[in-house]
């Protein structure tokens, strides 16, 4: 089909890179933003702008908060079709209480799962969520959208398209295409080492764009490959190749039975009520045991299973603050008496590899230089893809103009949408976050509409302005959307000042980096966008190249 291997790889690189590149832009850009997802949450929810806290006392803070929780009316309604009979007013049988925190979380996420009486599936559970201030247990409004951790972060791995997990599949497919693009890119370019140092901006046009594409691809090649690969591996057994849940679920069930026996952690309730011993003492004991193994650490995850039952147990897991590997190191206690049931044994060799790869991708560790390098890598990946689009269009648009083809125009409009349009949408949701009334019902939904609406508008704008591309000329939408980015970024910073009073001078003086950092990043983005817009404007004014006449009109 193709003359040789290199040509085949070039075809794969071009066409899979082009089509899936539009999805990959979102994965890389929002992945880069996700490194600072919790900081973005602080910016978006001003009432949570406090310092990160360690896991608080169970008796003083967590227990009263847990006991207050119940599923929302919406959750109860959603459960109704899965139940034979009436729904109770109050869910009393608690399957689990859990609390989760990281070194960057000032607020604590609480989860409570309850038994559902009369449910068709006996394992059915209904969930309640709460967010509290860990210093005193005061509840924080749950209907505030955590724009970082609950929007940008899921956007990067599923496009927030949860219907039949379609978004997971689209992003997964694009990750596979990324791996193929990296391998085929290496095959196409023989001078790999030299390309790391080659950038000829003076040459102009196609040469410079290709140089930048190669440079950003090669400089962070291990990073790009690694993130696409580990992202796929993390979700492989759940979404992409669920072999253990389907074809080989017999082996899975066999393993679960054996494991339940080995670990001594009861899978079911006993049906006998029992009290709860001192959980704070259990947590202290867990930390003492970690220290005894030379692994002193903070508590990341606390789970109480089968609450109020004789089979109840408490599991304490280590936070991933101080190392790359996402170790659990769980220690489990009998809830009623506080005696130790089990210390999770050290991981197997394969288990250690899995923990390391997962931990490297999810970066729970406290190492700010490495985290910033992650952001840089993500942005380099986005630049690589964007320059790929530009190269594709620039290489073909004069030829397409001569033949009256619309191909380059369509690709260019889509490129504007997924590069500048995407950034506008990301900044736009922050602006909407500050503009919408504080107590608007379903405020988070409105913020999401603002994001998607703005992105759609960017598409329409890019399409409408793209007519010159069909004549072999640049699309003015690039320049115009750069101005749009700058305006939105500055507006977001000003609105933060006006609506919360936390302007840059104050946050920098106080050293409150989550909010100062977001504001600074917005201003830096505005500066870059303005510089780009002006450069594009100057070039457009200087060149004024003649539009390429289509072959048909020349004949007429």
């Amino acid at each position: 089909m193709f003359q040789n291997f290199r040509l085949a790889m070039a075809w794969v690189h071009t066409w899979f890179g082009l089509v899936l590149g539009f999805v990959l832009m979102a994965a890389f850009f929002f992945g880069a933003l996700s490194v600072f997802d919790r900081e973005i949450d602080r910016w978006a929810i001003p009432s949570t702008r406090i310092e990160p806290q360690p896991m608080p006392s169970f008796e003083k803070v967590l227990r009263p908060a847990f006991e207050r929780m119940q599923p929302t009316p919406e959750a109860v309604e959603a459960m109704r079709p899965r139940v034979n009979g009436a729904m109770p007013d109050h869910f009393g049988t608690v399957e689990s209480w859990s609390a989760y925190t990281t070194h960057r979380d000032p607020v604590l996420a609480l989860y409570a799962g309850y038994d559902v009486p009369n449910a068709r599936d006996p394992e059915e559970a209904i969930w309640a969520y709460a967010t509290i201030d860990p210093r005193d247990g005061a509840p924080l409004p749950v209907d505030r959208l955590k724009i970082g951790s609950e929007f940008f972060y899921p956007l990067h791995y599923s496009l927030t398209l949860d219907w039949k997990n379609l978004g997971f599949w689209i992003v997964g497919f694009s990750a596979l295409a990324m791996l193929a693009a990296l391998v085929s890119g290496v095959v196409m370019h023989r001078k790999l080492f030299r390309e790391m140092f080659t950038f000829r901006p003076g040459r102009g046009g196609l040469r410079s764009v290709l140089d930048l594409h190669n440079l950003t691809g090669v400089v962070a090649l291990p990073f790009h490959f690694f993130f696409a690969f580990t992202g796929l591996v993390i979700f492989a057994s759940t979404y992409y190749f669920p072999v253990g849940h389907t074809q080989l679920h017999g082996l899975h069930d066999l393993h679960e039975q054996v494991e339940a026996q080995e670990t001594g952690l009861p899978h079911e309730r006993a049906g006998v009520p029992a009290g709860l011993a001192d959980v704070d003492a259990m947590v202290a004991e867990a930390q003492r045991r970690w220290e005894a193994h030379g692994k002193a650490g903070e508590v990341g995850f606390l789970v109480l299973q089968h609450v109020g039952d004789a089979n109840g147990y408490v599991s304490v897991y280590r936070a991933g603050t101080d190392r790359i590997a996402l170790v659990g190191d769980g220690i489990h206690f009998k809830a009623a008496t506080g005696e130790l049931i089990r210390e999770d044994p050290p991981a197997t060799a394969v288990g250690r590899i899995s923990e390391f790869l997962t931990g490297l991708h999810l970066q729970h560790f406290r190492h700010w230089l490495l985290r910033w390098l992650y952001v840089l890598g993500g942005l380099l990946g986005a630049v690589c893809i964007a320059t790929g689009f530009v190269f594709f269009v620039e290489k073909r648009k004069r030829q397409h103009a001569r033949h009256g083809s619309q191909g380059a125009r369509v690709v260019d409009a889509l490129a504007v949408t997924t590069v500048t349009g995407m950034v506008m949408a990301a900044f736009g949701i922050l602006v909407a976050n500050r503009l919408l009334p504080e107590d608007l019902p379903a405020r988070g939904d409105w913020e999401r509409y603002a994001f998607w609406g703005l992105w759609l508008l960017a598409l329409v704008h890019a399409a409408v302005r793209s007519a010159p591309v069909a004549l072999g000329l640049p699309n003015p939408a690039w320049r115009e959307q750069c101005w749009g980015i700058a305006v939105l970024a500055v507006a977001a910073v000003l609105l933060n000042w006006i609506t919360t009073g936390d302007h840059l001078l104050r946050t920098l003086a106080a050293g409150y980096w989550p909010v100062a950092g977001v504001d600074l990043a917005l201003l830096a983005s505005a500066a870059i966008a303005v510089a780009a817009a002006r450069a594009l404007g100057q070039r457009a004014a200087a060149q004024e190249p003649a539009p390429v006449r289509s072959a048909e009109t020349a004949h007429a």
Partner: protein
Amino acid sequence: MSRTSTIPAASRAPRLHLAARVGAALLGGYAFAWGLIAASMGLLFAAGMEFHDAEFLGSALGLLVFLAAFLWAMATRRRLAVVWAVLLGGGALMAATGSLVQSALV
């Protein structure tokens, strides 16, 4: 004698052939990867590896194999029928191995 029968399939309807090739690379590659994962999981678990370890190792290998199979299918000059036979056939054989191991253990 009909001229079209002497022209190779790839030249007769290039776009269609390309689409068929991409389809074979993706679907066949997926089937091949699934089979490899099933076989690895079954055999590793049977050899004593912990289940989730076998699942992880199988998935990691499967993804790399999917990539390799996909690139091979796109680059090879062999006929499409051969590509399908190798990928689907190989995938089915490996998947069957996995199921065989499961039925021996469960």
